[in-house]
């Protein structure tokens, strides 16, 4: 177990280095120049060549790529992600402005999805191939199929037509005004929660189906236990591990992956931040965000794998 842990921890290094190198190269390959964008805004007016060169020098973009990459990596090791080329403020500061919204959305959506998914998945598995199972499956496959941005458009449309309500432009944190925060977050949370409930329901159903075929469940039936006891007390416990693992990885994804939902609901979260940064060719911001998202993905995956080894005595890692 200890060697496995050490090996896994060691393998994080090349993965994150690879991600860092990849994002660095990709950002430099994308056509478009941040200096021209800063100086010219969105108009395609004439920009002085000298001005561009001066700005490039000031931002350090005239140095060889390897030097730029090296100094960026050195900064990352000291947890310094540099300054945004666009606003000039430290990337970490910019990120911290947007993180509460994304975290709140991810957290609430996860709660909604778990509250829906586990009972529904359980019900579907216990009644496999009956109309209850079919209904749950249709609803959950629907959750995967319906694009979240379309649900968002429909919800906003409904609210606008019905109540003349439009999404507010500024984010109100829950500690400032809980009610205003609730009004702002409820629809995105419902939209995202439904989608992730669908994913989790399916996982709950299929792992539970596997467990319900095990010998010890047959024994439980044979000794005359009720269905409720068997499903909840005996089967669910053993089926929960992959489900919890899935919830963990989904949460890691939710923090940076809600670009489309944030766009529809005009929420200024981490996802939008990435898209804007790519559009602005704001290299340090994109690099930092990709690095942070990939890093949390890798760490969550490691934790999930270790949890498997910890909770399931049948799994032994070398």
């Amino acid at each position: 177990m200890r060697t496995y842990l050490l090996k896994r921890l060691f393998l994080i290094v090349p993965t994150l280095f690879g991600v860092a190198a990849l994002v660095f190269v990709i950002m430099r390959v994308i056509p478009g120049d941040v200096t021209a964008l800063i100086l010219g805004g969105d108009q395609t007016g004439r920009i002085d060549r000298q001005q561009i060169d001066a700005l490039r020098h000031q931002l350090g973009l005239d140095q060889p790529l390897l030097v730029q990459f090296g100094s960026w990596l050195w900064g990352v090791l000291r947890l310094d992600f540099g300054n945004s080329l666009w606003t000039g403020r430290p990337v970490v500061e910019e990120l911290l402005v947007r993180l509460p919204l994304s975290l709140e959305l991810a957290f609430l959506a996860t709660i909604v999805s778990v509250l829906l998914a586990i009972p529904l998945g359980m019900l579907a598995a216990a009644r496999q191939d009956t109309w209850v199972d079919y209904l749950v499956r249709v609803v959950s496959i629907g959750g995967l199929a319906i694009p979240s941005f379309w649900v968002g458009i429909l919800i906003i449309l409904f609210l606008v037509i019905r109540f003349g309500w439009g999404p507010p432009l500024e984010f109100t944190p829950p500690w400032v005004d809980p009610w205003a925060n609730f009004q702002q977050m409820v629809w995105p949370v419902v939209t995202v929660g439904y989608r992730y409930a669908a994913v989790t329901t399916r996982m709950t159903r299929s792992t539970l189906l596997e467990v319900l075929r095990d010998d010890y469940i047959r024994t439980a039936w044979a000794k005359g236990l009720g269905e409720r006891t068997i499903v909840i007390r005996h089967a669910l416990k053993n089926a929960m591990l992959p489900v919890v693992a899935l919830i963990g990885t989904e949460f890691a994804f939710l923090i940076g992956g809600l670009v489309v939902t944030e766009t529809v609901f005009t929420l200024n979260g981490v996802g939008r931040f990435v898209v804007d940064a790519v559009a602005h060719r704001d290299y340090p911001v994109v690099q930092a965000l990709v690095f942070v998202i990939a890093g949390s993905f890798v760490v969550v995956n490691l934790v999930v794998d270790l949890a498997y080894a910890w909770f399931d005595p049948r799994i032994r890692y070398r």
Partner: protein
Amino acid sequence: MSAHYSLADTAASAPLAPRLTFVEEVVKFVRTKPLGAGGAVIILGMLVVALFAERLAPYDPYKGDYALQFARPSAEHWFGTDEFGRDVLSRVMYGARIALFVGFTASFAGCSLGALLGVVSAYSGGKVDLLLERLMDILLAFPQLILALAIASILGPAVQNVVIAITIPIIPRAARVVRATALAVKENQYVEAVQALGALRRRVIFQHIVPNIMAPYIIILTAALGAAILAEAALSYLGLGTAEPTPSWGLMLSGSASSYAEKAPWIALFPGIAISLAVFGFNLFGDSLRDALDPKLRRG
């Protein structure tokens, strides 16, 4: 054992089960997996619409008529018209073509490349395996949407570039699943036997390992299909996919659809239904296929 794989092989893999003909197989699938059959019907419907869009669509999807801007759904225009007076029904029908083209090519290319890498990785073992695994780890950890965004920005908005942007994130996911299966298949005695007979590496991989990883391959392929269609819609919605005037479902929902949504909600309504229905069909079918192919989930 035949090297050719078919649905019949797995479904009838229970000891001494009678071999079924293809028709009997289909009938059995419909009877035991009604949801899957429903999915298949939706997919077939989409295929027919996509293939025969010229004949089925009542109007030219590109030709606008300013006299007809924002016409409500009516007998002439079932789904109404958009801000240029173009027929929404015709655009949705042609949109099936883009969606299915992107969905099929991206998921097929991504899954096949991934499967190939997975098999090679598992069969070679050692340094090759380690290196390929790390590469796949990097691609997996890299946020999918940013990768797609970057590729779309580098290559420019065009259908074939959308395909590339969607294909790449599928590769590591397919590779991982197939590698795990191939590792198990590799340990079988028949593989050892053909190796002992002096079969070439290529022959062992393509004749003896590949046919046996087809079940997971088909499962990830059908799952990737729905995801690819959704990804195309999302990219186009964000303005990074196909460009106007191409009738893509995601594009029809972006920009104008939301700004005119109050005045003409049908512009946003029908393309969304089309996307949902298509992905729904593929997932429904894929799910039932997985249940049928996965012996652990078969009712015993």
